[in-house]
């Protein structure tokens, strides 16, 4: 049993980055080498995990050989595996990029342990099998993310991340009260057992509904759902480039993942169409408002941060559609499209932020209006921005094109046609803000004698952007199989 545990990919996905955090703290002079090695090992175990989930459908492990009542349980199903795979590939890209990005030894020494800890917490969150474990991971993510974001040391960055930390704490305390209520009502924390108990006890509807409201509003604060997004743009725009990428692509997604888990698995008997519609409306407002502010942003990183607000909004649009669609292939398509959108955004936004970081380092600023000649000086990076941008808009063949297509199809089929207007308007605005950047970048400046090339930082950005467009768009079929869904004519 014990020897199985040590090689179980479920355990390795969390233990390896934790070990990496310890090692990079203990030997700061070798932090880059150790960090990259642990990143590679973690990514390998995440891929193994995804392959195993592909083969067996779902995995489960109880730590320490305790009873299911007491033990900390880890589990992975298709949804968790898809997000773990995305997070770890993006994490590897960010690690390689960071090894070339940080020149300053002191900052580098602080970056690696925090980043590895954040990585461990993200994997722990995706694989958690009980409500309290989710809480601990949420707090770990919040603390490490705020510390990482404040690494630049500028006053703006510290102020933005202090606010982010406080908001995150408020969100997790609200979530914890929800957990306490659920434990009072049902006497267990295990996700599957609580789900059964909620389905079986209709008399406790009031308690369950209160817990749902507390938990979802706390998590919506962390996921930056409009109008609770106010903390996100300054925090993400002021962080160092690799950290912005991790925050926007992974950390916000983690909070959304917990909402999705609770909404679909746990509270399915409690959530009604009205509640889903309410979250959908907030999502729609996020799409319009976030895209509009992204269009008006003067700085590239601020634009990317507002675009994250909008992209999170799209994910919430799926909830009313899922509520209105009866189980079957159309609903499976919606679920897969939701995951596809989340995963594509993870790759696209991380690639985008990494590329923007290079533009900022080379030009010394990220003002959109003064980007002229970027395409001539940084051809590969500009290409990465364009690729990631086309995934943000949802142009074919990106993964978000398929996601948005299925979203609109679902909206029309379930009679909620108004979401189509939101998606179209959001995509048009996204096209406007991406092309605004590209039109400045592809100026008529003369081609310089030497291009700036830096493989260690340019290649990860380019590859992540490429995955969001080519791999997820052209080969998204396996996602349906991984999620255990029926492909009903989609993709």
């Amino acid at each position, binding site marked *: 049993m014990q020897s199985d545990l040590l090689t179980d990919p479920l355990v390795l996905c969390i233990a390896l980055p934790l070990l990496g955090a310890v090692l990079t703290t203990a030997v700061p002079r070798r932090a880059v080498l150790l960090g990259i090695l642990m990143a590679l090992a973690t990514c390998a175990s995440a891929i193994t995990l995804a392959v195993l989930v592909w083969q067996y459908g779902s995995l489960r492990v109880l730590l320490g050989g305790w009873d299911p009542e*007491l033990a900390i349980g880890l589990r992975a199903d298709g949804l968790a595996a898809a997000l773990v795979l995305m997070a770890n590939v993006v994490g590897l890209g960010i690690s390689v990029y960071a090894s070339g990005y940080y020149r300053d030894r002191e900052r580098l020494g602080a970056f690696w342990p925090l980043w590895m800890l954040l990585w461990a917490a993200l994997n722990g969150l995706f694989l958690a099998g009980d409500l*309290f474990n989710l*809480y*601990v991971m949420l*707090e770990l993510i*919040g*603390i490490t993310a*705020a*510390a990482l974001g*404040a690494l630049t*040391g500028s*006053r703006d960055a*510290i*102020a933005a*991340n*202090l606010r982010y*930390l*406080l908001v995150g*704490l*408020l969100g997790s*305390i609200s979530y*914890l*009260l929800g*957990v*306490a*209520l659920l*434990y*009072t009502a049902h006497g267990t*924390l295990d996700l599957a057992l609580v789900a059964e108990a909620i389905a079986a006890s209709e008399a406790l509807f009031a308690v369950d509904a209160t817990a749902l409201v507390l938990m979802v509003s706390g998590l919506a604060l962390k996921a930056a759902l409009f109008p609770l997004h106010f903390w996100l743009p300054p925090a993400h725009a002021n962080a160092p480039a690799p950290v912005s990428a991790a925050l926007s692509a992974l950390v916000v997604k983690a909070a959304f993942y917990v909402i999705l888990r609770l909404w679909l698995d746990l509270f399915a008997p409690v959530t009604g169409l009205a509640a889903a519609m309410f979250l959908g409306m907030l999502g729609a407002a996020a799409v319009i408002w976030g895209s509009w502010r992204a269009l008006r942003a003067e700085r590239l990183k601020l634009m990317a941060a507002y675009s994250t607000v909008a992209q999170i909004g799209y994910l919430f649009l799926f909830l009313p559609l899922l509520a209105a669609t009866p189980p079957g292939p159309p609903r499976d398509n919606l679920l897969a499209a939701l995951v596809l959108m989340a995963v594509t955004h993870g790759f696209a936004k991380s690639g985008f932020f990494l590329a923007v970081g290079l533009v900022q380092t080379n030009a010394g600023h990220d003002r959109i209006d003064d980007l002229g000649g970027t395409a001539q000086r940084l051809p590969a990076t500009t290409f990465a921005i364009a690729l990631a941008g086309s995934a943000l808009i949802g142009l074919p063949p990106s993964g978000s094109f398929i996601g948005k297509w299925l979203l609109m199809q679902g909206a029309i089929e379930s009679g909620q046609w108004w979401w189509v207007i939101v998606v179209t308007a959001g995509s048009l605005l996204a096209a406007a803000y991406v092309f605004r950047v590209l039109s400045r970048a592809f100026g008529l400046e003369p081609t310089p004698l030497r291009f700036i090339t830096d493989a260690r930082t340019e290649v990860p950005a380019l590859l992540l952007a490429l995955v969001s467009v080519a791999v997820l768009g052209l080969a998204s079929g396996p996602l349906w199989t991984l999620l255990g869904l029926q492909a009903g004519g989609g993709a």
Partner: protein
Amino acid sequence: MTAQFLYGGAGLILFVLGLWSFLVHAPLLRKLIALNIMGGGVFHVLIAVAYRGDGVPPDPVPHALVLTGIVVAVSATALALVLGARMQDEDDDRI
């Protein structure tokens, strides 16, 4: 049973008081204290839940949750204080 309700109810009141204070007051220290009071409220509720009647040992799970929660709250508070102190230093330097 009455004591349990009193204790749990006091926890909920503490949570609401803390939330109110967090939203209304701007200074960092007051916000942090408010967050800790909210946390204290949740811990109250959890401890009240653990009570299973006289003579019966209390449920250990909520107690474990409270212990973990306290550790998390202390570390988060510490980080917030460090960030706040750093901002204070920068402001002092500027003057």
